[in-house]
């Protein structure tokens, strides 16, 4: 008989959380801390979703989405997780750009961007200040018709180089383009580019291990290899889930699965009204990614002068559509020195590019393998500009594509960063359609990335907790449910 991954699970919970991405994990932990009984179901054999890693023979550990996150993670980890997690967050101080327009190194904070824009790009200090203040002052309720492109044109007319400096990292961080609403840029930009770029010491594996331990301490029932087939709904209210062939009832469900998958596959459109379905249908998914993972031989070192993150490009101009092309001219390199995992003697490099699912989905098996190999080779060629003897130092290299991301996270089209802006309103409107059903996970650009996903998990947990209290049976004390 196959192993029963639900062995010992109860028949009823206050809340079932589907998916253990950072939003799902954080929602589950927050709800359990508020005294709710929580079941967390993850289809993969690992927790973390996109916040993940993999191991290769020879002791190499590759991080997938640990290139950098904003300072705000410190506060969110301290508050919604533990002091130990928060205290492991360290700054990446050398962020580099190298493209035909400029080459520079920055600490990636407001002061340093101001210095660069004034000294190297000859922009008046007052303009820089006005731009930063405008970006920071933007909030969700502002006008949504102004685009990122228009915002730049207002402050830096005709300055392609300035746009590249201010936009390229954000495009990599969340796939946004010059056509997206300026407010999404403003919110992400002021989070990201005000206090520098940070990473997690010990790697993603350590973070997720610490989170797992904390979930158990909070009382969450954590289950892997539990693929939720259906969210159960009766008379406009959620009643539970069907998972691994078993029905489990719940007063609320939080889906951390892709928002469109949640609506159209896990629930089914017959449970939503027509206008809502049209809005949900119209939500555009964000792009996917390709990555190349390269490990140096044990003990081989990288010169720290390479920096931590390098935005490199050979494209003469910055165009967000070019960044998606399979004919890659722009890559972000993350250099991982042994200090990433203190005690290790490994140096690794991960190259990331944005990519379109369609470009990879229709290849034959041979074409697909050949394209992956080509991606590895061209990446090594590009890297040789910075690490001339890379091929001699190399121990292992392989590539991932949009299909890889789809396989592991079940995101439609392997979407790396959830949805475009309109996805947030649809995600927020789900509970008005079906009582007790919520979505938490990368949507709307601003709620994506490690910090965005985590904070969105908390925002949704607050809604769920409030719903549970409003609809709650007063006698369910924590002890009563244990018996």
């Amino acid at each position, binding site marked *: 008989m196959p192993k029963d991954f639900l062995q010992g699970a109860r028949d009823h919970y206050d809340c079932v959380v589907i998916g253990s991405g950072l939003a799902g994990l954080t929602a589950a932990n927050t709800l359990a*801390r*508020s005294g709710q009984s929580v079941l967390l179901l993850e289809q993969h054999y690992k927790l973390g979703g996109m916040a993940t890693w993999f191991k290769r023979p020879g002791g190499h550990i590759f991080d997938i989405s640990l290139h950098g996150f904003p300072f705000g993670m410190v506060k*969110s980890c301290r*508050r919604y997780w533990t002091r130990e997690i928060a205290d492991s967050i360290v700054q990446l101080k050398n962020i580099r750009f190298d493209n035909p327009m400029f080459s520079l190194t920055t600490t990636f904070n407001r002061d340093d961007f101001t210095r660069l824009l004034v000294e190297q790009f000859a922009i008046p200090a007052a303009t820089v200040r006005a731009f930063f203040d405008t970006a920071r002052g933007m909030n969700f309720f502002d006008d949504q018709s102004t685009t990122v492109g228009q915002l730049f044109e207002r402050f830096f007319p005709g300055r392609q180089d300035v746009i590249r400096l201010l936009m390229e990292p954000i495009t990599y961080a969340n796939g946004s383009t010059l056509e997206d609403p300026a407010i999404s840029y403003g919110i992400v930009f002021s989070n990201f580019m005000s206090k520098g770029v940070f990473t997690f010491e010990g790697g993603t594996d350590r973070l997720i291990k610490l989170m797992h331990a904390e979930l158990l301490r909070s009382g969450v029932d954590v289950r892997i290899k539990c693929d939720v087939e259906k969210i159960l709904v009766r008379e406009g209210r959620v009643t539970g889930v069907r998972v691994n062939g078993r029905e489990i009832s719940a007063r609320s469900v939080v889906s951390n699965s892709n928002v469109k998958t949640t609506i159209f596959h896990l629930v089914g459109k017959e449970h939503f009204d027509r206008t809502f379905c049209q809005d949900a249908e119209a939500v555009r998914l964000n792009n996917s990614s390709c990555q190349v993972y390269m490990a140096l031989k044990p003990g081989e070192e990288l010169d720290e002068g390479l920096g931590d993150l390098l935005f490199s490009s050979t494209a003469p101009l910055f165009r967000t559509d070019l960044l998606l092309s399979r004919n890659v001219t722009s890559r972000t390199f993350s250099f991982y020195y042994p200090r990433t995992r203190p005690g290790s003697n490994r140096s690794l490099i991960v190259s990331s590019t944005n990519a379109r699912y369609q470009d990879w989905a229709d290849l034959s098996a041979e074409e697909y393998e050949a394209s992956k190999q080509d991606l590895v080779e061209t990446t090594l060629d590009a890297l040789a500009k910075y690490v001339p003897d890379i091929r001699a130092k190399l121990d292992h290299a392989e590539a991932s594509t949009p299909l890889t991301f789809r396989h592991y996270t079940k995101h439609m089209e392997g979407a790396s960063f959830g949805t475009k802006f309109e996805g947030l309103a649809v995600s927020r409107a789900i509970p008005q359609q079906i009582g007790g059903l919520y979505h938490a996970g990368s949507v709307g650009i601003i709620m994506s990335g490690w910090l965005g996903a985590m904070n969105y998990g*908390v*925002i949704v947990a*607050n809604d769920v907790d*409030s719903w549970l*209290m*409003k609809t709650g049976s007063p006698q369910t004390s924590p002890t009563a449910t244990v018996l």
Partner: protein
Amino acid sequence: MTPAEIKEVILDILEDIAPDEDLSGLKEDVPLREQLELDSMDFLDIVMELRKRYRVQIPEDDYVELSTMQSTVKYLAPLMKDLQKA
């Protein structure tokens, strides 16, 4: 709870949320946001703590009432008057 006790509750919560801030000189009628480094997640935390500790529900539309200490206490007074301070 009396208004004075409610104020103490809020200060307790703020102390947890902003451990590095000095709360002794907080002005009653000036927005908290102008005196402390608080963002929208911090206000959400205040709401969550009040629900956790006292089962007080604050609907999203009412979050604006939490602007100053004075307005917060005034808003919470009728909701918390029958509760005992923990």
